């Protein structure tokens, strides 16, 4: 073996790159290894159809931590996060529900559906603001282990406990409800407008194999309120150049701090000697040595694939084996000759703003729950929940002038489809998506120049994410905080000394936050390599 690195990072997804950048910034010699020809993992932009660029898998930037943007000077490396202004939900009766950027406009819109809900909406927002603040410290905190007696854990728990007591009874109750109820039930307590509840609850099921009536989904509603606490003002944004541009910016920052990034360099095995990681073996057989090895892959691959069975304690192995992935979503990317016209808003709204925001296909709670019913029994949704954006309307550079790209996030498309995914099933799934959009936007099909359908199996095959779960492990409550990915091992360390985890499969979990990558780097630096 030639050079011995301070740290080798396995996987060039955004979290792996964030860890690499922070470690390099601290003066460590760092090598990041990516199996694919380009960095990004699930956050890549590719020109699949000439002139049309697609964010292949992930599509919006949720909560990319502002401190990461500042610390790594990402705008200088090309990062620009653009606001996604609005959400319009077309209804099956030709009406619609819109949430606009302006508060008064949104209020008036909601009033059209229910004067009562229009008022409740503000109160709900006020409460959610407090809830988000209650939960927020957890995001930037290394999760304490409640069963540990280590002073650090005790202190952190004490701080959290104090923090929660400070909320007062009413808010504490709301927090418990949020952590336990289904999003539909939680929203039932607030609103009467079905389409409003459907659209809000739909955001609570993204990346899970749960329906809006499944307990525990209410928690995810909070994520939407988290962003505004960070001076982001909007929780959701779109990165100029697509999510691949986020990865490229982080990679560029990492390189500027001296990190080495190698693509086409898949890792087949982590070398472990006497319970301590010492390096990696590449798929081509090369061995590379490092004082610390960090995996940004999901927990299944981090532990069950890259290590030998004997490297880990049995109970830990069975915990990881139980860790749920259950990819449940697909993606349809479409190149468009022109923008589709939605029946509910033929003129595209004032200033054509419909297409500048998200279009949510969640016309009723029943619609979304029925979409889940299909998946529960092993089928893709015949009429799925969809979150549609037109990236070329936000960043015109995504398509040739005057043409457009359309990104459709689709749920549900179960990884474990009855009879398994085949090319024919993939196309049938694509047809279901296109037909559903067509029902809300007649003439849509005739505008399609090219379509790419991505199933969970495709996500797994291309990015490696187990079972195609975009969050590298289901974002269910029993897999969050100190339980992510396994009790006792949520703090980025692993049972193997000098082997760390930094991906979305660790606290605080998925989305393009980069938080786990940053926290892992902090932990590694604190432990000293």
């Amino acid at each position, binding site marked *: 073996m030639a050079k011995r690195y301070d740290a080798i990072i396995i996987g060039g997804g955004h979290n792996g790159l964030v860890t690499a950048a922070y470690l390099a910034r601290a003066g460590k010699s760092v090598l990041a290894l990516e199996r694919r020809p380009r960095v990004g993992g699930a956050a890549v932009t590719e020109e699949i159809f000439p002139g049309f660029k697609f964010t292949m898998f992930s599509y919006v930037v949720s909560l990319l931590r502002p*401190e990461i943007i*500042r610390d790594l000077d990402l*705008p200088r490396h090309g990062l620009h996060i653009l606001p996604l202004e609005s959400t319009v939900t077309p209804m099956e009766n030709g009406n619609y529900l819109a949430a606009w950027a*302006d508060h008064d406009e949104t209020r008036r819109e909601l009033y059209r559906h229910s004067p009562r809900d229009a008022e409740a909406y503000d109160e709900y927002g006020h409460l959610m603001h407090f809830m988000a603040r209650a939960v927020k410290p957890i995001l930037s905190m290394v999760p304490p282990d409640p069963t540990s007696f280590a002073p650090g854990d005790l202190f952190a728990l004490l701080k959290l406990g104090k923090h929660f007591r400070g909320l007062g009874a009413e808010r504490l109750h709301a927090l418990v409800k949020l952590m336990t109820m289904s999003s539909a039930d939680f929203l039932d307590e607030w609103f009467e407008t079905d389409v409003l509840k459907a659209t809000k609850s739909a955001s609570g099921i993204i990346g899970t194999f749960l329906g809006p009536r499944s307990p525990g989904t209410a928690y995810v509603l909070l994520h939407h309120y988290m962003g505004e606490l960070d*001076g982001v003002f909007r929780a959701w944004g779109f990165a100029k150049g697509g999510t691949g541009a986020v990865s490229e910016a982080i990679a560029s920052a990492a390189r500027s701090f001296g990190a080495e990034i190698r693509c086409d360099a898949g890792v087949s095995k982590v070398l472990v000697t006497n319970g301590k990681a010492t390096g990696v073996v590449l798929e081509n057989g090369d061995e590379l040595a490092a004082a610390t090895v960090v995996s940004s892959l999901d927990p299944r691959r981090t532990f069950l694939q890259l290590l030998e069975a004997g490297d880990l304690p049995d109970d830990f192995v069975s915990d990881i084996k139980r860790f749920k992935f259950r990819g449940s979503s697909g993606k349809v990317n479409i190149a468009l000759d022109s923008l589709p016209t939605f029946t509910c808003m033929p003129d595209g709204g004032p*200033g054509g703003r419909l297409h*500048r925001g998200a279009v949510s296909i969640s016309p009723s709670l029943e619609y979304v729950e029925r979409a889940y019913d299909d998946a529960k029994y092993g089928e893709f949704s015949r009429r799925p929940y969809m979150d549609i954006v037109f990236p070329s309307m936000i*960043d015109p550079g995504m398509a040739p*002038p005057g043409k457009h790209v359309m990104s459709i996030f689709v749920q549900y498309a179960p990884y474990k489809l009855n009879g398994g995914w085949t090319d024919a099933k993939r196309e049938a799934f694509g047809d279901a998506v296109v037909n559903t959009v067509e029902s809300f936007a007649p003439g849509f099909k005739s505008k399609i120049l090219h379509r790419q359908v991505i199933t969970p199996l495709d996500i797994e095959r291309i990015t490696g994410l187990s079972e195609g779960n975009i969050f590298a492990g289901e974002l269910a409550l029993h897999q969050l905080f100190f339980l992510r990915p396994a009790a006792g091992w949520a703090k980025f360390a692993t049972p193997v000394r000098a082997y760390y985890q930094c991906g979305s499969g660790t606290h605080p979990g998925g989305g393009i936050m980069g938080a786990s990558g940053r926290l892992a780097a902090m932990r590694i630096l604190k432990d000293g390599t």
Partner: protein
Amino acid sequence: MSLRTTPFHPRTGPLSEGQAWRRWAGYVVASSYELSHEREYHAIRNSAALFDVSPLYKYLITGKDAARLLDHVVTRNVRKAKVGQVLYTPWCDNEGKQIDDGTVSVLNEQTYRMTSADPTLRWLHLNASGLEVRIEDVSETTAAVSLQGPSSRAILQLAAEQDLSALKYFRLTPAVIRGIPVTISRTGYTGDRGYEVWVDAAQAVPLWDALIETGTPYGITPAGMLALDVARIEAGLLLIEVDYFSSRHALIEAQKSTPYELGLGWTVATDKERYNGQAALEAERLRGPSWQFTGLKVDWDSLEFLYAQMGLPPRLPSQAWRTSVPVYANGRSGRQVGYATSGGWSPLLKQYMALVHLESQFAKPGTELLMEITVEHQRKSARALVTPLPFFNPERKRA
């Protein structure tokens, strides 16, 4: 409206969703067209924003001695400037105190256009005695739009008949857009790739239409002063009456500044004949200015802490502010060592930034200072770091 509207108003007027207008040199221009300026701001950095900048004061200076006059007035070397060049420059009184800042464009050997923030006709005349020169106020007859952003070049290139690929930063060229004669200068107030298009006021509306039609597939977005204000702070560009006072309006000496004190030392030519303020500026150059104009980044953790003490999440200004805010030394003395004059949140950089005047000894990049922040009616101080300007300087600006 009793104030004047610009030649573009037939188009900009109906675009205003919230009737939010700002006064500028006796005209009204849009603060923002949409209810929030957010999207207009992002257009500057993401695609292309179209600003109506017609209220600028504009003078046409012609004749054998045109260059001589301007060279005598401004601090930069006008006689060295080539045809097609645009100079950004301040001008000073005889004590070297800054009167105004603007641009001087060399249209041809004997024709110059000067823009200014304040009326400058009288000052030019006062300096022109004995010179063979004609000074014409073309403020009302010349309209101007500014097209700023990464896609600005692509749009203008499609709209204009001339090849613009060779048009360098701070250069201009005559051009024709849909049969309309215009002057295109690669200038702006955003620190991004951008152009300004100068046109006869009578042709303003067809020019606007041509640009909007050509630019729509590229995301062209009419934008107002609120968006511009954020971008110009990111770019570290100062604004008269906000970041400094004209020496002609100052009531006391302390309100006046020299170009050296405003970070404009680079605009003071040392290789030219006598000009207004020369002796004083030369002395200041040798002595070094006692004040400096620079950037300040407010530390996020510190800001968050101040609000957390009150049980609040950090509040950020939703618009750029333009008030004077004290800045203190971060030491035992805690003495005031300067003041911020503009500030705001950069949505791009995720950074709370301010433009500050600091005593020179505290102006070194990296110096830790304290900036006053009012939290829940109480005066607090947040840690802040002296940062060289500009905060944001993309390569595309010059490329």
